[in-house]
């Protein structure tokens, strides 16, 4: 069965909805598109697809379009969609799953800097068990190339003593390292079932 998209006819991929359902544990086939999620969505005016469109695209199996969309990276996970859905679907939980899938499959992010920020943040957690904002921000700036953006804000925060030079670290660093190592293994869904996947850490 085919569906006509902006890029021409495409084969419907029913494996996609199965995978999203299994991993996110959200009943995405129950959606009847009342659009309460899209009306409440805080970022809908900035994304390429609105929450109920994301669900519709999953129902149609439009995996490639979704994994490269800006919507999955601009979702702020405020959970307004899930709180208001009459069918108990959290689109926010679904976007978490879609982002994981996009990273696993190496799909270039629709909003390049967002995953770069997450990576810088998690690297900071991995090295000290806690986030040290100044070094995390420098790492992110170097990766993203936005070196001088927000320079003034950074200086203002520094003057207020809000960007401490020395990091606070946990003595639990070995345990943190263990956690980061162990999450690389077999993945599990939001309801605890196993599946095979890679994590962002493995791709560095």
């Amino acid at each position, binding site marked *: 069965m085919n569906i006509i998209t902006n890029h021409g006819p495409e084969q419907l991929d029913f494996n996609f909805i199965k995978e999203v359902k299994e991993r996110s544990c959200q009943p995405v086939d129950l959606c009847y598109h009342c659009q309460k999620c899209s009306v409440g969505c805080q970022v809908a005016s900035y994304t390429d697809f609105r929450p109920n469109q994301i669900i519709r695209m999953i129902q149609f199996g439009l995996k490639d379009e979704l994994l490269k969309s800006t919507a999955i990276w601009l979702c702020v996970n405020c959970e307004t969609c899930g709180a208001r859905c009459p069918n108990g679907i959290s689109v926010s939980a679904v976007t978490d799953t879609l982002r*994981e899938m996009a990273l696993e499959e190496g799909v270039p992010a629709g*909003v390049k800097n*967002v995953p770069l920020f997450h990576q810088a943040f998690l690297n900071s*957690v991995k090295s000290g068990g*806690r986030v040290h904002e100044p070094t995390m921000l420098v790492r992110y700036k170097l990766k993203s190339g936005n070196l001088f953006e927000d320079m003034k804000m950074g200086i203002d*925060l520094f003057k207020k003593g809000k960007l401490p030079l020395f990091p606070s670290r946990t003595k*639990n660093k070995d345990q943190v390292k*263990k956690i*980061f190592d162990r999450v690389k293994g077999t993945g*599990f869904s939001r309801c605890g079932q196993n599946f095979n996947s890679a994590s962002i850490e493995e791709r560095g």
Partner: protein
Amino acid sequence: MKFAYYPGCSLESTGQEFDYSIRAVSKALDVELVELPDWVCCGSTSAHATSHKLALALPAQNLVIAEEQRLDPVVPCSACYNRLKTAEHAIKTNDELRKQVESLLGCRFTGEVQTKSALEAFTKDVGLTAITKRVERKLTGLKVVCYYGCLTSRPPEAVAFEDPENPQSMDKLMKALGAEPLTWSYKTDCCGASLSITKADIVYSMTGRILDAAVEAGAQAIVTTCPLCQTNLETRRRGGIDIPVFYFTELMGLAFGLPDTNRWFKKHMVDPMPLVRSLTETG
């Protein structure tokens, strides 16, 4: 009353005045806070946006420590609270997930501790009666809007401790301090803090909606319970808006007549002193 205290990374940097004021008002109310030894970062948005497993394992590590201490953790930052509470909910309601997390951490959960946001701990456990008794200088004439943000309200089944669409605890607290909480429609909207560094253009528009609504409601200040919201609302704003954003604990400290309040207010990115001074003069 005794709690475990999980400050989280923000309270050591951009949200320092939240940390200072929480410790001070707790002392004033005879609440003992024991900092969770060797706490680790909750992973925040970055963990749950990229790895479901990490998003449970990191906050759950802190629950393990709290269980060892046999104390309920009090978590001021809404993002940390959301992550710890979500992990607690997963562990307590789903045996499969509990086993998965136990094998990641190499531990066993007893499920005996209950994570609380600082707002919940003060308004429900300590209670408004005890808080009202401690007020020395009522904040009479101070018009505020209470901004709860998204992370203490949603997802409701896991994290909400009151009505997720129209929470009241902070409004009641402000009344108890003598301030006047105003009605507005943006209590649980999202300020976009998780995109603050990466998509500032979008965030300016999101904070703009909230700041404009606060001014339109006639508020002199916004009161919040989240260090990410506070920093975001004060730093990501276009020119011409000078409404300050307080942590609820700072206003408690002010109403209790605590000596350190000026030290907290000096940390703000939007100077709240003109408003504080006007209160002192009229009060």
